[in-house]
């Protein structure tokens, strides 16, 4: 483990950005977003989740795939190149890091999505433990430990010290490149480090959504849940916007569309939302014609279909963005509480 006085963070950021593009949570219009670091950029570790998750850096909201141009009888087709920017994403929370594992399952399994794979290869994820989680957080329910975040490097900010622990080969390489600025942590640091993690665990235990039980969900719950008579009542508040899906670190559905540039066609893909009326629209129409069905799809995907296809891994990491952002305050927590085995337990 390495460490660094917090006062030297700007120096660390400058060093990282000198090697690879550095992105970290910054304030934009009062909201937190991942943005490019520049000299003087303030990093505030007490602010929790960005509006859009770290997903955006590996699976962007929209990206070009191929360009078509016609000239007379000639048609030229140009493929978009795999992204090649080496970057470091600093301050990723444990939930978002876990979200990337869920996306890996989708995009790195055969056939591999080369754009996603290139970004995963080029990107180094430095996580930050959550010293002050929000009331909307429930990552513990999905097996995420906010005191022990994943990523390539995990970091903790305890009072005046940043602790730094590499977790992967990519993390080792970044750590080695920063060896003249990072100091080795010694025995005396262990006490303060352990106390910091214990304090985080105490707060996690005290979260209002702590104790959310997933009993009754999982890959084999299809029949019990799909036909539940509770879906209509749950979905009636849903206004059919895409907020929950777009702020979600694990939602991975996309659409491919053509854009007429006037001189050719740009084929791009963009995030899709199962909440939209034209989601999975085909020649014969839409398989889900009502909002109840579309609403059900989102939660069945996260709590049943995804674990069925991924050795029990859920398609939710408990980041709480949908809890905070749903215009109607309807969210996965309410769904779990209504449909779970312990439906009436708090």
């Amino acid at each position, binding site marked *: 483990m390495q460490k660094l006085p917090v006062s030297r963070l700007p120096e660390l950021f400058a060093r990282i950005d000198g090697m690879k593009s550095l992105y970290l949570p910054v304030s934009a219009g009062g909201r937190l977003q991942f943005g490019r670091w520049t000299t003087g950029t303030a990093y505030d570790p007490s602010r929790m989740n960005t509006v859009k998750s770290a997903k955006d850096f590996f699976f962007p909201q929209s990206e070009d795939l191929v360009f078509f141009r016609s000239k007379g009888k000639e048609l030229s087709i140009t493929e978009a190149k795999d992204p090649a920017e080496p970057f470091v994403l600093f301050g990723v929370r444990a939930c978002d890091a876990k979200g990337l594992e869920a996306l890996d399952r989708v995009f790195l399994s055969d056939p591999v999505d080369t754009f996603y794979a290139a970004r995963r290869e080029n990107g180094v994820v430095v996580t930050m433990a959550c010293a*002050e989680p*929000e009331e909307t957080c429930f990552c513990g329910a999905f097996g995420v430990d906010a005191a022990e975040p994943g990523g390539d490097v995990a970091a903790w900010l305890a009072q005046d010290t940043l602790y730094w622990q590499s977790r992967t080969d990519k993390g080792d390489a970044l750590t080695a490149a920063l060896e003249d600025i990072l100091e080795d942590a010694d025995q005396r640091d262990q006490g303060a480090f352990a106390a910091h993690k214990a304090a985080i665990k105490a707060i996690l235990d005290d979260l209002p959504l702590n104790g959310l039980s997933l009993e009754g969900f999982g890959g084999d719950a299809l029949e019990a849940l799909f036909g539940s008579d509770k879906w209509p009542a749950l979905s*009636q508040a849903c206004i*059919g*916007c895409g*907020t929950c899906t777009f702020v979600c670190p694990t939602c991975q559905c996309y659409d491919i569309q053509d*854009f007429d540039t006037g001189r050719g066609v740009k084929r791009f893909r963009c995030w899709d939302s199962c909440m939209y009326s034209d989601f999975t629209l085909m020649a014969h129409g839409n398989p889900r014609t009502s909002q109840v069905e579309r609403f059900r799809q989102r939660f069945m995907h996260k709590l049943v279909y995804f674990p069925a296809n991924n050795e029990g891994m859920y398609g939710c990491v408990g980041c709480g963005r949908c809890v905070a952002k749903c215009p*109607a305050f309807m969210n996965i927590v*309410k769904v779990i509480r209504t449909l779970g085995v312990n439906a009436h337990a708090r």
Partner: protein
Amino acid sequence: MQRISELIRTRAGELLESGAADQILGWENGGLAYDPTPAFFTADNVAGLVYNSFCGINLSKYLIEKTKGKESGKVAALLKPCDTYSFNQLLCEHRIDRDKVYVVGVGCSGMLDVEKLKARGFKGIKGIDEKDGRLTVHTLYGDKSCPKREVLMERCISCKGGGHVACDEVVGEELTPDAAGNRFAGVEKLESLSPDDRFDFWRGELSRCIRCNACRNACPACSCNKCVFDNSRSGMAAKANSDDFEQNMFHIIRAFHVAGRCTDCGECSRVCPQGIPLHLLNRKLIKDVNELYGDYQAGAAPDSRSPLISYTQGDAEPDVIYERGGAR
């Protein structure tokens, strides 16, 4: 607030029992201190009905779906004073079947904006108490306090006042938040900028748009069966912004589409996950309509007619933009 919540719950129970209403449209408590969800209640679940300072959600739009079709049941809708403007406007546009609705007006003394609490650094909110115009916010990191008026929703800061404009009965007192201000102050500030600065302001704000469509879907004036932006055959369907300018156009087109019909209910800004002040676009158009055609409040009456759909010989000519646009 506790008292009015009980009054409303009791009255809702009576309406269901007497058969005056088959369902109640109101708010159901969530698991947090500030997350009541719109819900329909019958005798089975009416005990879960709540009304508190976080019931900002405008319920009028839910009545479009609810009163559609042949079902003859009656729904009693709990509407705050400002919600009744949207309700009236939807009646004007024949989007709600009035015969199927019983409007229960609920008093309001201003709704709270949880984003404003969070912006003050109040995080880990476990509970909120309200007393004498002050809030005590219990958080995971200790108790905090602030004046209620400083964390009111944008719409409440410039409350229309004057109570309900459509209702069959009122439960609780008609109250007005103590913060009524000039609702056009934000627009006037933008008007005072140069066209370039104004353009930069909006490009900056709208650059954060993620095209989640929450503003459109929450908007009571956006009630098209099939929005042109969702229609793959319209040639302008878009799930993401194909280029930066497009997201600007989306919001501007939407603002023009609801011009003269927008009641200034503020839902667009409330629901935006990115905090884009969309209400300023609508208020600019409301202000322009007022200046060009005389003061007009959409939804003030169930039969009001927008100046934009009533031709008079004295109407403004298109060249008015040369005088008013501010371009050099």
